[in-house]
Every structure is written in C-alpha cells, then in structure tokens.
C-alpha cells in the first residue's frame, strides 16, 4: 500500500473527472439535486444530513410528549386531598394516557434519538473528513443502516395503532409479557434499529483502522475520532445483547417460552440483567460522542492544544470498557445479591475517574487560552457545567445506601436528564453550530444563537434542577399525580420546560435562518486545525478533498495550521482580516458577498506564550 499512497496525487486519474470548481461552489449538496440522488446516496455527508432531518423529527415528537407530561404535572389532580377526592380526568390526560406518553417519550428518546444522535449525524458527516478519507469503509452499509433505522422508526409508529405502550422504556418483565400488543411491535422495532446501530459502529471502527490519510497516526487523530472509536466498540459489543433480549421477549410474548416469565419458570431478574447489560453501556453510546465534540470545541475556541491529549483519548476507551461492568447498579433494589451490588457500586465509582480526567483536561485547556466565546463554545461551557452536575449526582446514586432511598424518584430522572440532555443534547447542539458552516457553507446568526442558548440554559436548569429537589423529597418517578406538597416544585419545573422548548425551537430557527439567509461561510471560520477545516471547502466537495491530505501535525496544532491556512486562504486585498475580534463578532468575509475565495478568520492569533 505504501507505494500507492506516495504516488503522485496530481497525475490524471484513470476515469478522469471533468474539472470542477474547487472553491466549494461545486459540492456534495448541489452536484446532483434529484430526490433519488439523496435516497440512494452512499455519500457519508448526505447520509449524515438525512439522519439529521429524521432525528430532528423524532426529537420533536418525543419532545412534544415531554411537554405534554410536564403540562399534566402542572397541577395536582387532588380536588380535595383531605377527603380523598381525585379528578380522574387529570389536568389534560388520564393516568393511562400518561403511562403511554411517558413510555413513548422514553423509548423514542433513548432508542431512536439518543443512541443514534451524535454518531449518526455528526459522526457520519465529520469522521471521514477528520480522517482525510473519501468516505467510510462501507458506504452501502452506511446507507443500509439509515434504512434499518427508518424501518425501526416505522414500526414504532405502527405500534401507536396497536395499543398504548405502557411499560416504561425498560420493558420490565413480567408486566411487558401481559400488557397490550404494542410491546411486540416495540421489541421488533428496537431489534431492527439495533442493526442500524451495529452497522454504524462496525463501519466507524473499520474506517478508523483502515482509512486514515497518510501521516495520520493514532496520536494525531482528533479526539472526536477517538470518542467515535470508543463508542463504536460499545455499539458493536453491546447492541447484539439487546437484540437477543428483545428477541427472547418477543418469543416470550408470542409462544410463552418461559425464559423471563416467572409464572412459567422463567427469571424476570435475568431480563433486567440482559436489558441493562446493553442499556447501561448504551448511556455511554450516548455520552461518549458528546465528549468528542466537547474536546474539539475546547481546543478550537481556547486556541490551545488540548491538554492531556493522550489521557483524554484513552479515558474514552476506559469509559467504554468500564461501562460494560456496571450494569448491576440499576438493580440495587431488584433483588440481586448484596455482594454483587457492592462490586457494581465500586466499579461505578471507578467510572468517575476517566470522566473526571476529561473534565479536568477540558478546564485546563482553557487555562491561559485565548478563549473565543462563540456559540459552540458557549454550549461547550454549558456542557461542562451540566455534565459535572449530572456526573456527580450519578456517583451519588451509585452509593448503595443512598440509592435505596433515591431509586425510582425524580432524583434519578433529574440525574439522567442532566447527563443525557445537559450532556448529549447540549453537545450535539454545540457540535451542530460548530460544523454548521462546513455542512451548509452558510453562517448562522451569532447574536440569535447566543440569545437562544440563554433560554436553553435557564430553561434546562429550571426544569431539571427542581427535579433533584423533588426526588430528594421523595417524589416517585412515572407517577401521574402527586400529593399537594410537591405542587410548587412541579410548577416551576413545568414552566422551565416551556422556556426550554422556546430555546430549542429558537435553536432550530437559527439553523433554518442560517440555511435561508445566512452569509456565505469561509472555509475555516473558527481557525480550527482539523482536516475538514484546513483541507476541505465549505461545503465539501462530493469526494471530500480534491487531493488526499497528507498529515504532518497534530489535530490541535493551531499554530502550524495557521501557516497553511494563511498562505492558502489569505485574500489578496488584505481586508479579509478586518474584524476586530471582539466577542460576538462573526468572522467577516471580504464583505462584498460575491462568494469568492474563502477568507481568513478575523481574530487575533495568540501564539507567543508557554502555558505548561
């Protein structure tokens, strides 16, 4: 292979393409605009965008379910608590509907949104670009994974017509064998969507091993790639276990095989073991890619080589591996033996170590950095704040004695949402803002993006911090109603969820506005040093790079990237760098709006200090 890679990249190819403009005006979005060219595409960038639109719809539906839940909880249904009078109609829905809505919210958010979210959208779009590759290793498998996902989503929608799924997203036996037929549909949906997840993970592992550009060693990989590597390992090794669990639950319902059903000699605890053997690693499927995004953002917007690169990279892998050994902490009160609970609790603490390594390294990266508070960085800072709260409360519920009190209360709900929404979703939004110029070749409105980030932050904390208090006071999760003492906190939480919804719709609005009216994006608006910014146009060519990049530096060597960057992209007039670099100032193009050459990032480049 060596001789082929060092061959002259400028020689004409065997099937010589016609010359296309290389300034981004000919790109993966517009080279073929027909519907079928999207439906049958094997281009990782287009598949990423298809996932983005699909997942946005899923998030919208599942998010509206959440708003409905919060609205139901805005007032207690006890018309006269002392006399025991309760309004069975509820505030807006009855108890059965509530069970259905929270189950659908959980099942759709976890299996159809959070599990695929970052790998499917940003992983697909960014990973091959980060590697200097033309595509993932198996492009057709990549498209297949998208359609498997669609098939799973269609089955979930079909389940809505069969019955109201009311098991909670965990499908605990034996109730899930007794309740209505929608469980059968959901098990099949999750089984099929699991293939999508496995295909994506498998594809990424092989891509990272085999498709790196010349010179791109393991220690020059961007940390996003390291995170995707770790998450892909989990996807490949954990998802099949969920697959067989769902398959056995399916046969349990169809034939009554008696593997999980205690009435037939089965073991419901075995179901919980098998379910959590997947579903605990699954939360690392959800959060690890977010770590990757934050590493990119922290480096780029602190303009600082990421502190402790190797530690951050390996801590991702460590979390992925340790994540397989802690599933039992979901079952402290399920009747597993005391000794296994103690061991699971101990290993749960251990996960705090690599997670802490990451947080400390991100914070240290900012130390004496040249921090540029653009929207992606705001979300990155938000992530660190929220994830730290979510992570530390996770350690608390990992404590055996504390968990017995807090198990199945709103405390766990709040912890989970701090990690999954405050972690994964916030990082996803930050990553979307960061790569938005690369994806669409347009800039979003920095001012409005910042305004709505405030709504998201305030709304999120108002919604979920109150739930820590509710949980600590003993409010159980999944309850349709509550006694009047919890009413004030529930009301605050509900109002917070409305603020959060405004913020999230606003975020969507800034993207749509950017797509429609946004200014043309330069090739490298953030002055980043990874290949998609230094070597690919905005938006990228259908083949990503016009020539295979040869990597001679690390992913966060901004100083070295600038050399390339300044010589290759500097406008001849020199007014491209006219911005004053103050906060909130979007890097200016040459102002003429004629969409000519990409321009240099307009901010001071700090390079003459030695932080460590």
């Amino acid at each position, binding site marked *: 292979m060596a001789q082929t890679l060092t061959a002259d990249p400028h020689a004409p190819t065997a*099937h010589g393409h016609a010359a296309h403009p290389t300034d981004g005006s000919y790109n993966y979005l517009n080279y073929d605009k027909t519907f079928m060219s999207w439906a049958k595409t094997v281009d990782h960038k287009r598949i990423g965008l298809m996932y983005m639109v699909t997942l946005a719809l899923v998030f919208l539906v599942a998010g509206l379910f959440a708003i409905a839940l919060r609205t139901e909880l805005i007032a207690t249904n006890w018309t006269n608590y002392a006399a025991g009078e309760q309004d069975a109609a509820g505030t807006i829905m009855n108890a059965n509907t509530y069970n259905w809505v929270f189950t659908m919210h959980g099942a759709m958010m976890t299996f159809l949104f959070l599990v695929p979210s970052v790998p499917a959208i940003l992983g697909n779009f960014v990973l091959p670009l980060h590697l200097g590759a033309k595509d993932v290793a198996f492009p057709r498998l990549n498209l297949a994974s998208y359609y498997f996902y669609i098939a799973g989503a269609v089955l979930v929608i079909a389940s809505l017509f069969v019955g109201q799924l009311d098991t909670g997203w965990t499908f605990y036996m034996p109730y899930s064998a007794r309740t209505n037929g929608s469980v059968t549909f959901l098990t099949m949906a999750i089984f099929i969507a699991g293939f999508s997840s496995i295909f994506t993970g498998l594809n990424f592992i092989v891509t990272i*091993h085999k498709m790196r550009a010349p010179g791109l060693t393991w*220690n020059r990989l961007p940390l996003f790639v390291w995170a995707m590597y770790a998450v892909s390992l989990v996807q490949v090794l954990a998802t099949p276990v969920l697959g*067989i669990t769902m398959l056995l639950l399916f046969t349990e319902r169809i034939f009554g095989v008696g593997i999980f059903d205690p009435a037939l000699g089965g073991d419901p605890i075995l179901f919980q073991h098998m379910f959590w053997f997947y579903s605990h690693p699954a939360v690392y499927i959800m959060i690890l890619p977010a770590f990757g995004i934050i590493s990119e953002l922290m480096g780029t917007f602190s303009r600082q080589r990421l502190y402790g690169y190797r530690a951050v990279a390996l801590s991702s892998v460590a979390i992925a591996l340790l994540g397989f050994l802690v599933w039992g902490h979901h079952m402290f009160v399920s009747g597993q033996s005391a000794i296994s609970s103690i061991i699971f609790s101990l290993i749960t603490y251990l996960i705090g170590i690599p997670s802490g390594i990451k947080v400390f390294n991100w914070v240290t990266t900012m130390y004496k950095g040249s921090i540029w508070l653009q929207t992606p960085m705001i979300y990155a800072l938000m992530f660190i704040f929220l994830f730290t709260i979510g992570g530390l409360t996770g350690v608390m519920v990992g404590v055996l004695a504390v968990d017995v009190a807090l198990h199945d209360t709103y405390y766990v709900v709040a912890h989970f949402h701090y990690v999954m929404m405050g972690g994964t979703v916030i990082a996803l939004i930050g990553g979307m803002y960061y790569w938005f110029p690369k994806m669409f070749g347009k800039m979003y409105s920095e001012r409005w993006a910042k305004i709505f980030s405030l709504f998201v932050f305030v709304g999120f904390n108002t919604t979920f911090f109150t739930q820590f208090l509710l949980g600590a006071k003993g409010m159980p999760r999944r309850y349709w109603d509550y006694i009047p003492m919890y009413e004030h906190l529930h009301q605050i939480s509900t109002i917070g969820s409305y603020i959060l919804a405004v913020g999230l719709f606003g975020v969507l609005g800034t993207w749509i506005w950017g797509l429609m009216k946004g200014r043309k994006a330069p090739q490298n608006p953030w002055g980043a040093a990874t290949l998609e910014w230094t*070597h690919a146009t905005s938006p990228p060519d259908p083949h990503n790079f016009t020539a295979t990049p040869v990597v001679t530096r*690390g992913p966060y060597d901004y100083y070295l990237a600038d050399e390339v960057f300044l010589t290759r992209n500097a406008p001849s007039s020199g007014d491209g760098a006219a911005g004053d670099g103050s906060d909130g100032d979007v890097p200016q193009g040459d102002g003429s709006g004629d969409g000519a050459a990409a321009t240099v990032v307009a901010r001071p480049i700090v390079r003459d200090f030695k*932080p460590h």
Partner: protein
Amino acid sequence: MPPGHPNGVRADRNWPLRFDFTTPMASAPATLTVDSPEVHDAHAHDHPPHLQHHFVSSEQQFDAAKMGMWLFLATEILLFSGMFVAYAVFRTLYPATYEACATALNTMQGAFNTLVLLGSSLTVALAINAIQRDDQKGLQRYLLLTLLGAAIFLVVKYFEYTHKFHSGIFPGLAFHPYGEEFGHLATVPYARQFFSLYYVSTGIHAIHIIAGMVVLSWVYLKARKGTFSSSYYTHVELGGLYWHLVDVIWIFLFPLLYLIH
C-alpha cells in the same frame, strides 16, 4: 516539527499504541498536499474494476472488508451469548430437568449433523484455498459441497423437529408431550422451558444456516461468472468466515443440549 513549537508537540510518538500502522508515516512527503484543481480523484494508479472509489488499493479494500467481517462475527457471538447465559442460569436452577430433557434429544442425529457441519467448514476452507491457487473449478466444486452440507444439516434438523412436533413437543405454551417416547416429559417440571430454549437457540442457529446458504449461493453464482481470482476473492473469504462461525456455534450448542445426560 519546528523545534520552537510553544507546546512542545510530540505528535509523532506512537506510544502506547504501537498497533496497526496501515498508514505509512515514514514515506509521507514532508509538505502538505496542495489542492490541484484539475484532479478530482486522488488515487492515480492502477485501477482494477473491483476497487471501489474510496479505497486507495485492493489490499486496503480487502483488509477493511475482512476486519468488518470479524467485527460482525463478534456481534453474532454476543447475540448467541444471550441464549447461552439463559441456558447457564436455568441449567443451574433446574439441573434435573435439563438432564431428563436432554435424553429426549436424538444424540445420533445431532452427532451426524456435527460431522456434516465440520465437513462443510473444511470444504469452504478448501474453496478459499482453491481460489488462492486460481483454481476456478475447485472453487465452484467446494462451494457446492459446502452448500450440500448445509442442506443435509437442515434436512436432518427438519426430521428432528417434526418428530418432536408429532409428539406434542412445541415451544412455549403449546408444549404438551404425549405418546410412548416423550409422554414422560409431561411430568418433568419446567420441561417446557428446556424445549423452548432448545427451539429458540437451534432455530436461530438454523436461520443463520439459511443466511449462510444464501450468501454462499451468491458467492457461487459470482464464482461461475469468473469474478474471483487469486488477487481478488474477498467475498469467498468473508463467506467462509461467516460459515466457520455458524459451525462454531453449533459446536457449542450440540454438547450443551444433547450431551449433558
């Protein structure tokens, strides 16, 4: 790397990951490649028809495909591991049931099927060996023999299943054994569960056999068209790997289900 770099970059050290050097660092040019407007495909070298556009060389394509297959096999093992775990749990809980029920399985038929599968694993290995020697006829012959082995396995399995069905041994709630041979199982506690697990695990295994037959038939059709040669036989290799896995899983299922009495 300039010596005066502020952060003291040591990016070209590979510790602690000294595996997988598919990218030739030493031979990489020292400068960054500059975009060339004329060229849209960077691979400018011999271009065999089977080489997909996003790979640099046939070796890279083959290595990637093989690695992908190995990862897929890992997922298959984990899929079956769920059933093995269930088996381990219930055999521990109801050891007497498992021993009593295992006697109802036909060891001779199981052993025969084991031999058939082992033989088909041999023939698929010989098929790969044949195409590595550019022996087209040998490749086709050994692929057919493998398919024959798979078919024999399924036929025997069919007779095993129907024989039990005729005595009321069905998976799940339909389990009502009767007759000379199996009637005594009605009194064995949780016998239903043993046979359910038997049907589920061997059934999923049989589905894998059928999937393997589809794959190998497709490879056979490609082989008849002369697609493969000693320089390109990815599909044969991957089909063979998959077939070995199906074989290995049976090697575990057979003693666990048939030979525990």
